[in-house]
């Protein structure tokens, strides 16, 4: 049993005191003292407002904060929320904290939270990002109610984003996941989500937990596990998502966590995904948002330079990953000036599939493969910026749907690569 070695005695003692719960709210933290208070207030208000009768516990899995983040979570009194909202709590609300490690490991933090959810027999487990300062109390309801009332097993968020935000998600993770697994989850790697108790229990038994690299991408594994396990998946519109500056600069690490995990999942799931053709929409709840269209300043020249430099410097690496034709196309694009720059969707799709196949075959170190995708992703980002400068929300959606169409149309190409026939 995973929890036997995962949970400390002190944490276990706290869990015994909490006892069985209906809803477990998980917070994975590491030095979040500056943002945690509005988040915890919103969670408490959401509990009071939407789940006054349910047994709820807030569990903080902390990765060695030095700024007293856990103390702020445990010390937040629900009476303060009550005095503002005048909504009364019927029950005791427990907030407990455990330090699972002295350094942050989001996958281990999630595993700790899920193990607690299993022990406490939570009907629903919702994970909230400690950076989500735009959180509203009703997020809790939007995430939990579909599990509670409609028997969904995974509720994935949809945020109101700026049209140039979440590019990695829209340009790679979403179309790739949708194409591979046949299910259009818009945020397959979400920082907020809710899962049912039965999915949590099942997910804890997965082998990938034992691999540190895989564990880092636990969220995407969770989405895949829900889809491949025939669990009921839905999406819920939440609202604007605060843009966290922390780690935004570390694109390589983000790619390893997300793209690496997604590529890795293809290995074991091949018998399943290889037979899937096309995709089906995911039930989506709530009022849809318009994307935000305000102009933003981006250093396009720098993006182009990073792309061109990457293509030039990593040519030996690309030769082992990409097909000759794809590399040749990329080199042509690298020579273009900013104003003429375009990295077409079908070429991007082929690039991603060739990377995925190379990852599968481990032609070089898998980490290096993912890392090598970073400059190409920057080039693709530049193309999106240029293409969508004047686009409306509808245009953005249409382009995204077209990209997904390319991914799905070219899926046989990926299968051929997988079978090593190219």
């Amino acid at each position, binding site marked *: 049993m995973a929890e036997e070695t995962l949970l400390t005695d002190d944490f276990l003692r706290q869990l015994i*005191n909490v006892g069985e719960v209906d809803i477990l709210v998980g917070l994975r933290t590491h030095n979040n003292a500056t943002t945690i208070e509005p988040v915890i207030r919103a969670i408490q208000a959401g509990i009071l407002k939407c789940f*006054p009768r349910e047994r709820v516990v807030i569990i903080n899995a902390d990765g060695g904060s030095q700024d007293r983040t856990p103390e702020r979570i445990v010390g937040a009194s629900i009476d303060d929320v009550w005095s503002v909202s005048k909504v009364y709590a*019927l029950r005791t609300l427990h907030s407990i904290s455990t330090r699972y490690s002295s350094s942050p490991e989001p996958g281990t933090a999630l595993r700790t939270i899920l193990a607690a959810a299993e022990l406490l027999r939570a009907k629903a487990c919702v994970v909230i990002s400690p950076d989500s300062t735009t959180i509203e109390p009703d997020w809790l309801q939007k995430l939990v109610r579909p599990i509670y009332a409609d028997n969904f097993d995974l509720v994935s968020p949809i945020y109101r984003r700026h049209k140039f935000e979440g590019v990695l998600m829209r340009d790679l993770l979403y179309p790739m996941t949708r194409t591979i697994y046949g299910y259009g989850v818009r945020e397959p790697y979400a920082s907020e989500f809710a899962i049912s108790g039965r999915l949590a229990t099942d997910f804890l038994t997965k082998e990938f937990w034992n691999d540190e690299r895989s564990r880092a991408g636990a969220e995407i594994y969770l989405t895949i596990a829900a889809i491949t396990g025939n669990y009921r998946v839905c999406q819920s519109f939440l609202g604007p998502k605060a843009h966290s500056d922390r780690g935004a600069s570390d694109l390589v690490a983000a790619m390893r966590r997300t793209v690496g995990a997604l590529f890795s999942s293809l290995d074991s799931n091949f018998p399943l995904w290889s037979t899937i053709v096309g995709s089906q929409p995911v039930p989506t709840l709530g009022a849809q948002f318009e994307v935000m269209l305000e102009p933003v300043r981006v250093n396009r020249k720098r993006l182009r330079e990073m792309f061109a430099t990457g293509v030039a410097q990593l040519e030996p690496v690309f030769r082992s990953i990409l097909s000759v034709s794809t590399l040749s196309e990329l080199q042509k694009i690298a020579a273009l000036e900013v104003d003429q720059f375009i990295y077409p969707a079908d070429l991007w799709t082929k690039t991603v599939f060739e990377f995925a196949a190379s990852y599968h075959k481990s032609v070089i170190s898998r980490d290096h493969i993912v890392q090598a995708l970073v400059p190409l992703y920057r080039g693709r980002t530049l193309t999106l910026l240029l293409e969508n400068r004047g686009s409306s929300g509808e245009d953005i959606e249409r382009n995204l749907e077209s990209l997904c169409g390319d991914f799905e149309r070219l899926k046989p190409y990926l299968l051929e690569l997988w079978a090593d026939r190219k």
Partner: protein
Amino acid sequence: MSLKRQAGWYKDAIIYQVHVRTFSDSNGDGIGDFQGLAQRLDYVQELGVTAIWLMPFYPSPLRDDGYDISDYRSVHPSYGTLEDFKTFLSVAHDRGIRVVIEMVANHTSDQHPWFLESRSSQSNPRRDWYVWSDTDTRYSGTRIIFLDTEMSNWAWDPISKSYYWHRFFSHQPDLNYDNPAVREEMWNVMKFWLELGVDGFRLDAVPYLIEREGTSCENLPETHDVIRELRKKVDDQFPGAMLLAEANQWPADLRPYFGNGDEFHMAFHFPLMPRMFMGLRLEDRKPITEILQQTPEIPASCQWCLFLRNHDELTLEMVTDIERDYMYDLYASDKTMRLNLGIRRRLAPLLDNDRRRIELMNGMLLSLPGTPIIYYGDEIGMGDNVYLGDRNGVRTPMQWSGGWNGGFSAADPESLYSPAILNPVYGFQAVNVLSQKRSQHSLLSWMKHIIQVRRSSPVFGSGSIEFLYPANHRVLAYVRQSGKETVLVVNNLSSAAQAVELDLRGYKGNILIEMFGRNVFPRIGDLPYLLTMGPYQFYWFKLRRI
């Protein structure tokens, strides 16, 4: 024989609430009476209670179950005679059982001779015994209590062509306590019964005695003046007699009714009762500890009165809207179970006839600070009949045996004042005193035992309380202390077994002696004291330093 009225007797009392009509019928007319009640006092004595509270037994048109009195100095003929009452009182006292009677002081029946005189003409000497007005606009800031039936607190009297004031039903005109003659006469009434030997009164509807323009006409300072005046007379002339306030208010609003120990001796703690039910269903001590934290200190001579159920609906006036909705959903999902702002059900059906929960609730009733009141029939787990109107479903005949009318009456079943409970679960053939007396493990036997244990220690009646707050919120734990005696009470509100760690370092060196089985538990040390508890289990431990 008169039982000597000792000061403070009520603090250690255990009160049994009875309606004469419901308990035992001696003459076969289908209605319980004083002779029948007197014959059943052996049972009451065996149960172990130390006092009886009688609901109104005065002559009355019975349009509000006797709370509409038409003669304060007599007994309703259906229940017997004044002599029968005296005999009953004597037999009760012989058994060491005190008797508290109802005093409906705020209002009379509109059939009371005082009111008949008062309304007869505007110049009648008793005109000013009630509150009259030419308009129905005075005291407009006063709420209407019986919203379901009354449109106004004023009623038009076609005889004297003016309006009279009533806080309850329109057939219950309020007495005018601004009139010294009324106060004097009501004292004479109380003196009449005290001279017969009763041990105290439950004063009904006390917040409403006085009216003043521009106020809510509730809890007014002048009302407290009236109470202090009555109390002084009681203390001066009948020391040891007890006054119990019925005022359905928040604890902080009730506190003034204790005054400086110079108003009421006792008052019902209305908000605690629904929260005990709520805590049990939520499996969370929060509602109980919160309301007791909000309960102010009261003078040393005073006492709270605690109850689980009584003759009225389980009132939900003193809870928030969200709590009321929860209580309705969990305890009265069938809307016929609801009445006014409450739930008209008995204890056993409320708790799904779950013996463990019934025991736990009684365990808390008998160990929290206050004088407990047990409603007749709840000691055997009687059921109710929600299909009878008003609150009559919880006022059905006492179930003495599995025989004719449950042993309540020899009358034809059709002529009983109320049909007996007949269903297979709660009917008298399944639930009755006779069969439960024969079993050591019956609810009745268990109730006798716990009452005996409660009476074995003074801490429950007069001890202080200190709540422990173990991290496990499903466990309600407190320490009762009086003098050198200390008792630890631990209640598991959960339907599942629980482990709980109690911080008992302040009692280090003591051993725990479980009060029911007298088993010894390990000595308290420096570490948290670990207990494991079964579903709905509770412990009473006496702490001893040996």
